[in-house]
């Protein structure tokens, strides 16, 4: 492999193109071009500079991880946090345990709460209607102690259902923020750089 400026820039671009917006990519690459340019002014060879900068793979991964973390901070979306998680994984395989497992567990838990909430929100009004029909005499099947108890019961179920669904959204948002901070902590430990909350 030819260890010169063109090659270094080419390798960085290869790893970052399509992942970073073109304007940001060019801005980042210009930093490295300037590094080579000034280094050469000081009398160093391109190969020496290539080596001292560090493997393009390593550098590119760190650029990516930083980019996605900040993107997830600024725009809340599941796509962004997923990309941030993947980029963080790219930095260290042992993160698989500390990042992916909690993440999956969280998704499952949120989904479960949501489903239970939806179920209750659907059954509650149904039970309410049945209770009303019982009171009015149109329904003879005895599903609970008394139709009045049924009214309270169904109202309660509906309320709990709505609480679960609404609470789930707040929970999801809360864990999104926690997740971002956790990812940043991971990045900070792995790359040794801090991303401010």
């Amino acid at each position, binding site marked *: 492999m030819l260890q010169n400026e063109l090659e270094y820039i080419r390798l960085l671009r290869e790893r970052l193109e399509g992942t970073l917006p073109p304007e940001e990519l060019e801005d*980042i690459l210009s*930093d*490295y071009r*300037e*590094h080579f*340019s*000034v*280094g050469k*002014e*000081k009398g160093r060879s391109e190969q020496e500079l290539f080596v*001292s*900068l*560090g*493997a*393009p793979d*390593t*550098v590119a991964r*760190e*650029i990516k991880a*930083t980019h996605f973390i*900040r993107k997830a901070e600024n725009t809340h979306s599941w796509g962004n946090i997923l990309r941030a998680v993947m980029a963080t994984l790219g930095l260290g395989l*042992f993160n698989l345990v*500390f990042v992916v497992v909690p993440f999956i567990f969280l998704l499952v838990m949120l989904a479960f709460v949501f489903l239970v909430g939806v179920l209750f929100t659907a059954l509650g009004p149904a039970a309410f209607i049945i209770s009303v029909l019982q009171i009015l005499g149109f329904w003879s099947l005895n599903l609970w102690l008394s139709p009045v108890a049924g009214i309270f019961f169904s109202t309660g179920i509906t309320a709990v259902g709505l609480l679960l669904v609404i609470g789930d959204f707040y929970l999801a948002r809360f864990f999104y923020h926690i997740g971002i901070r956790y990812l940043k902590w*991971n990045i*900070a*430990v*792995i*790359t*040794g*750089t*801090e*991303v*401010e909350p």
Partner: protein
Amino acid sequence: MLCIQGDAMNIQFKKGVLEICVLSVLAHKDCYGYELVNEISKRIDIAEGTIYPLLRRLKDEGFVTTYLQESAEGPPRKYYRLTESGRKEEHELKDEWTRFTTSVNALLLGKNDAAE
């Protein structure tokens, strides 16, 4: 996080202090990219290329601003300068570092006493 053995542990230490090192150097004077990288790599052996994304982030967070300045030896260079909030951050991190290293040193020295 998991503890990593030997050299890898050393790398984690170095990386952990990179931000405070960058802010400290800039607290003394504005630097252009290469100059800053050179200053740091004189003391710490790291992949120099990883400093640029860090600088970029510090700029995003408002701790650092950049400006171009003409150079006698070639094309204009991008200079990094610490902002007010950057100076505050540098103070805070330096305090934290001092407190941390003082505690660790006390522990290490205490341990040596016991060994004798």
